[in-house]
């Protein structure tokens, strides 16, 4: 098992190097000069040129990438061009808001998604099932930023129950979390439903029913537990993709999180900061996927023997 985990982590290394190269290339080979953006339009050409020299922007592209990589291997990921702070300090000052947002949204998603999915499966083709499937369609078809605006319009501007912006307290996170959860909810409902439907048709469920197990016990203990495996994948994947997919929601709710930071950094051609944040998100996503795989082995003992054989 440990060997498997280590292998997965080692396999991430080339992908991460690839990502850093890709982002480095995108940032450097496209028009726009970071030195000019930092000094503003009114700065003289000499000043811009001096700053470029100082930042090492005049070297060959590959030399610069190699220097960056050399620093990164030694633990120096560079400083943000704008704030002059080491990129990971900047990153970690922004990360908590995004993490809270993703976490809150996941909780909402699970609390609503699994029960609704189970009920739709148990009462397949009933009115509840049809309504929940249709709302799932509606939710996937709704752009998150529009739902966010609608929630602000109703609950912040008209009813005044929740603030529309900020990250100061729990209450600030309510609307953004709902918005983020809504987009992911549909996939969870549908996955829970289809997974439950598959399990309900198994022989052991019929056996349990035949020996007189109550419906509650049948659903909660016999079916749900066995249907949970694919559901957990979806939850894990959704949580991971939330970490990298909050840009638009953060900007709707004016939250200073990872997403808004990344957008500003891309616009200002702040290469070290952009690489750091994209690589960070990518690592978070693959660690999350690994965690889901490990979790599997605890839920399904059959898989455990499979891994230990490897």
């Amino acid at each position, binding site marked *: 098992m440990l060997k498997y985990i280590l292998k997965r982590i080692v396999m991430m290394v080339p992908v991460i190097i690839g990502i850093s190269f890709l982002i480095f290339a995108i940032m450097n080979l496209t028009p726009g000069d970071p030195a000019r953006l930092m000094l503003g339009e009114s700065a003289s050409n000499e000043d811009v040129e001096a700053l470029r020299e100082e930042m090492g922007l005049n070297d060959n592209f590959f030399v610069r990438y190699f220097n960056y990589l050399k620093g990164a291997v030694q633990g120096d990921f560079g400083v943000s061009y704008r704030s002059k702070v080491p990129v990971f300090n900047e990153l970690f000052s922004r990360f908590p808001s995004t993490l809270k947002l993703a976490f809150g949204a996941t909780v909402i998603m699970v609390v609503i998604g699994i029960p609704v999915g189970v009920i739709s499966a148990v009462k397949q083709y009933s009115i509840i099932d049809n309504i929940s499937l249709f709302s799932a369609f509606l939710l996937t*078809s709704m752009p998150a930023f529009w739902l966010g605006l609608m929630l602000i319009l109703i609950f912040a501007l008209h009813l005044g129950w929740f603030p529309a912006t900020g990250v100061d307290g729990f209450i600030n996170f309510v609307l953004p979390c709902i918005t983020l959860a809504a987009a992911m909810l549909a996939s969870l409902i549908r996955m829970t439903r289809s997974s439950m439907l598959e399990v309900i048709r198994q022989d052991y469920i019929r056996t349990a029913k035949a020996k007189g197990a109550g419906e509650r016990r049948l659903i909660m203990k016999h079916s749900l537990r066995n249907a949970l495996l694919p559901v957990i994948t979806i939850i894990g994947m959704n949580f991971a993709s939330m970490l990298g997919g909050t840009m638009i929601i953060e900007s709707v709710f004016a939250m200073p999180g990872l997403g808004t930071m990344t957008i500003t950094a891309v616009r200002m051609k702040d290469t070290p900061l952009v690489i750091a944040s994209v690589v960070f998100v990518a690592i978070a996503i693959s660690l999350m996927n690994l965690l889901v795989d490990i979790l599997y082995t605890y839920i399904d003992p059959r898989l455990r023997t499979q891994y230990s054989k490897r």
Partner: protein
Amino acid sequence: MTDNTVLNNSKAVRKSKVKKRSQLKSIWFRYKKNKLAMLGLVLLIILTLVSICAPLLANYNEDAIRQDMKNRLQFPNKDHIFGTDQYGRDLFARIIFGARVSLSISLITIAVSLSIGIIIGSVAGFYGGKIDDVLMRIMDVFLAIPQMLMAISIVAALGPGTGNLIAAMSISNVPRFARIVRSSILTIKDQEFVEAAKACGTRDGRIIAKHIVPNAIGPIIVQATLNIAETIISISGLSFLGLGIKAPTPEWGSMLSEGKEQMRYYPYLVIIPGMAIVFAVMALNLMGDGLRDALDPRLKN
């Protein structure tokens, strides 16, 4: 004798034709039974007709672009059924021309990324080995970056504009198509008819184009339909952030971001463009889902 062979041949030809039609027919038969999927199809037809007929319904320069401060911020009324925006432009005209923008850009995006994805995926799947490894590792790098993050990075780096938007969206879509194409090809390439074609000495390119891709097209079409829906959301999202289509071109996302400022007192400015997006995306999602069930009924629950 010869007459008989001809007769047999023509019978065989007719038979194969019938067979082919019945395949399409049975897909259509299964699709038709799905009410939600039919709703999707109808919505999409309406949307397509509206965007094709847009110039008949409104005048682009007069209604959708020209600012008319005298008539700004009018609530929906009988002259302007969706009202007017803060520059006095007719919202209805902007919505229907916006449909053109969204649909055409997302179609181009999907066409571009699908063609590149098919080439990469089929080469990787067909040849396997080293080429497959290298291509798929590159795709893994792209896939490891969340799609929206990728699109934002590219379009913010290139600057806003229609061409750049298409480029960014296409690049971020390619890896997914390449993956799907590759995996469907892997399931097909060892089947007898491919072997037979190989034995006949058919060139690889022709085998891929004529024998493999047509047989793998089902899941690809489904994915493409669902991707058009996602692309419409992404385009409007990027425009909402000011990274997409440049003003004053009517685009649903940028209309939302303009209307946002006035939303407290003029909520229709954000409600209507949003509904337009939901309408279009839902049509495509319903259709994609129906197509998936119709093409492969085994998958349905």
